[in-house]
């Protein structure tokens, strides 16, 4: 047994060591490195509860190990008959009262933050001229991609959420097929996108994403939604309010943009033939598209939300989307010629609104 115990300690030690070595995860993805007020609130709650729980565990483990060391039959002898104790009202009172106290200590901030994070009363606030005071984004989750509409600006984008830093951004969340869940771990907790009702919450983005490794925060779908649930990633670009305003203006400028069959650009012409029916290339509009809006394709960080953003992946994806994201709704375009695919990929990678 003692040998076993030593082994156990060794494993614990090793485990602890590996954790320290690998840090707290990646800055663009970890809840342990919060980059927004909501995530920070939740992280504080994590620290508080962890602290209390470590205290509880310390008490339990101390009694446990002392008992284990002191009261072994091997030491006491085989014939030793311990004294029977029925119980102790004093002890029982103590270990009922102290946990109640600890629970109260945790319950107060829990209730406070539950109401704080659930407060969306300012969502529809307008100034004297009737303009919305806060940015609202309508998120629609679909098999297996994300649509982001900015109703006050009349623009829509997909796969990459763009938001300003330093202010509350309010979200309306819904799903158009099966239930998904909207989660940006480094920014704050998740909220489900139900099929029948709009869920509302807010997040705050305190850090510009351009300094991150990929220049984006990672977003995830957190509710099992079918075979490609694991691949239903999205990315989040955060920028200063000025830059965000520029981005919105650039998005608005794409009004009316379309692909022409007569274009000198072979890619644009092929796109018009095969893709435009589902994929818009103008950002001005509302949500409800059957396929992702591609106005900002060239600005993006990933193909289909998770593949390296390069030409080859773009071509491969168009040829056989099922191979990469099983169960998604895009048909395969393997009938397109290699030249057309090549041209379409070039055209797509050129679709940009950012400088």
């Amino acid at each position, binding site marked *: 047994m003692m040998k076993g115990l030593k082994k156990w300690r060794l494993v614990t030690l090793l485990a602890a060591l590996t954790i320290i070595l690998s840090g707290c995860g*990646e800055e663009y993805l970890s*809840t342990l490195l919060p980059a927004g007020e909501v995530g920070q609130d939740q992280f504080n709650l994590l620290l508080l509860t962890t602290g209390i729980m470590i205290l509880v565990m310390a008490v339990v483990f101390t009694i446990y190990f002392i008992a284990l060391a002191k009261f072994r039959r091997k030491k006491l002898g085989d014939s030793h008959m*311990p004294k029977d104790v029925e119980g102790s009202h004093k002890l029982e009172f103590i270990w009922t009262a102290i*946990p109640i106290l600890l629970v109260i200590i945790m319950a107060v901030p829990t*209730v406070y933050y539950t109401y704080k994070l659930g407060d969306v009363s300012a969502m529809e606030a307008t100034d004297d001229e009737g303009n919305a005071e806060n940015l609202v984004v309508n998120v629609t989750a679909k098999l297996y991609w994300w649509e982001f509409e900015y109703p006050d600006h009349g623009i829509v984008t997909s796969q990459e959420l763009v938001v300003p830093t330093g202010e509350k951004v309010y979200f309306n969340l819904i799903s158009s097929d099966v239930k998904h869940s909207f989660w940006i771990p480094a920014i704050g*907790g998740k909220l489900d996108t139900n*099929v029948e009702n709009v869920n509302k919450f807010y997040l705050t983005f305190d850090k510009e994403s351009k300094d991150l490794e990929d220049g984006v925060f990672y977003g995830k779908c957190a509710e099992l939604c079918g*075979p490609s*649930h694991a691949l239903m990633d999205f990315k989040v670009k955060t920028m200063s309010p000025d830059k965000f305003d520029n981005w919105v203006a650039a998005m608005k400028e794409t009004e009316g943009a379309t692909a022409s069959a007569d274009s000198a650009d072979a890619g644009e012409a092929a796109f018009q033939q095969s893709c435009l029916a589902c994929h818009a290339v103008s950002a001005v509009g509302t949500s409800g598209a059957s396929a992702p809006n591609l106005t900002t394709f060239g600005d993006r960080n990933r193909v289909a939300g998770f593949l390296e953003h390069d030409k080859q992946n773009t071509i491969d994806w168009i040829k056989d989307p099922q191979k990469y994201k099983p169960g998604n709704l895009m048909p395969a375009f393997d009938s397109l010629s290699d030249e057309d695919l090549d041209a379409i990929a070039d055209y797509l990678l050129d679709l940009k609104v950012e400088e």
Partner: protein
Amino acid sequence: MTTVANSVGQKKGFGATLWDWLTTVDHKKIGILYLIGGGFFFVLGGIEAMLIRLQLLIPNNDFVSAGFFNELITMHGTTMIFLAAMPLLFGFMNAIVPLQIGARDVAFPFINSLGFWMFFFGGLFLNLSWFLDAAPDAGWTSYASLSIASTGHGIDFYAIGLQIAGAGTLMAGINFLVTIINMRAPGMTYMRMPLFTWTTFVASALILFAFPPLTIGIFFLTFDRMFGGNFFDHTAGGNTIIWEHIFWIFGHPEVYILILPAFGIFSEIFSVFARKRLFGYSAMVFATVLIGFLGFMVWAHHMFTVGLGPTANAIFAVATMAIAVPTGVKIFNWLLTIWGGSIKITTPMLYALGFIPSFVMGGVTGVQQGAAPLDYQLHDSYFIVAHFHYVIVGGVVLAILAATHYWWPKMFGTMLSEKLGKITFWFFFIGFHMTFFLQHFLGLMGMPRRVWTYMDGQGWNLFNMISTIGAILMAIGVIVLIINIIMTTAKNVRVGNDPWEDGRTLEWAIPSPPPFYNFAQTPLVRGLDTYWIEKQEGHNGYTAAEPVTDIHMPNGSIIPFFMTLGLFIAGFGAMYRVDHSWGLAVLIFGLAFTFLMMALRSIKDDLGYYVTKDQIRRTERGRD
């Protein structure tokens, strides 16, 4: 059909033996059947778990496909909860509870048999999905929007299989309630019942209230998928959130249905191997009842991120945290039971001692997730995967393994090898912590649960690899256990009444395995830890409450088997009715067959039989 007293060791042919097991209504044999059935599904669920972990060994792995992975996680969860953990616990409840309360059998032996066969055929039905169509793939929670959208018959197998198995569970629960209320020996007052009997009692009450919601939910799902009901189809006025509520109104008490008997098992083991009565017995009983009660008040903590609003979230958050209090009471009472005792580290005790740190860690992360705003981060991440495996593996599975070693001699009359038992423990225990401890951090580092694969460069690679290695260690532990069982059975060294020598409760006062009528004379119970009291006074055995008289015993019956077979056939009919015209005929035939069997049972008088005084005297002499 009568099998008068022939279970006392005559050699029988294979056919007769098979018939005996198919028709048995003896609680001890049904207990063994539950162990075999549950053990089989436990291994199956374990293999599914290994495939899951192998897929997640490295990033971008393509060991299994995305669709198959979802089938694996769904079947792993469903199998482990409904077809492994619960039946295994039922096995011990069946085998032990009647002995602990000094009864000759459960209150309804026929229903006991029916309950087992319904579990078995339900499980079989569910698992046939692997071969016939596709396995269910919407997770063990089978959330409505996805389960309605799922193509093929996978979810139909889930719905019908669980409906049949669930009905069996409900019967078993009612049976234990009635047994414990009515069949206690003279002197066995409620406050003298061993803790395992108490926790069985409370868990059975939870089954009584928790399984009907599941039945209703699954009926709705079945009707939505097979008969065009629109309970959960939001485009036709249904609502998917209702499914989540119904499922968790069942699902949360279900967790306590599993863990309470585990608490009972450990309470017995701590007391026996510390040679000391359970510290704070009445507080333990009260805590058990309180946990059972609170278990019904907290279901929405599984739904904090559904968008129920801050008031609902706050109420359920505080209620959830409150459960920590009675659970803490239990932990401290166990600690004080071994404090000042004489601790003998046997294999069951090793599991009990391993349980305390494991379960405490699972418990504290449960409280953390009870803090609703924090749960917005933890929910549906790998943190929750770590948490519920810490309570279910660290609590329930360790209890099942402990009970296997602890009661094996009572059930089979021979001891499992202590040496191999300890080897199993260390592999399983170390593997368990290796697998699940780091998963807390994976969740905090942003890894969602139920992901088929993960991309490189997210900082999750190392922990996933360690986790998979841990899972392999657990598998080795289970394989050693199986070897242990085979070797022990082959050697078959017989043991006496009280092989652990420190037995305290009534089951240790009678032979191992007990004769088919359990107690030659109904025992008289003179206090808590009945057998311990007798031993203290120098008695070997128990004080009888009656002279040796004829014993009334129930006859075996094949009807439960056939009743369930009818439902099993009807299940296929209901499912294939959608594609084939013959489905309806099969559905009607199956149900009609079941009703015919029910009618047979009602019309045919079966008054059981008597074991005469002479037979009892001969049997008892033969043992001495």
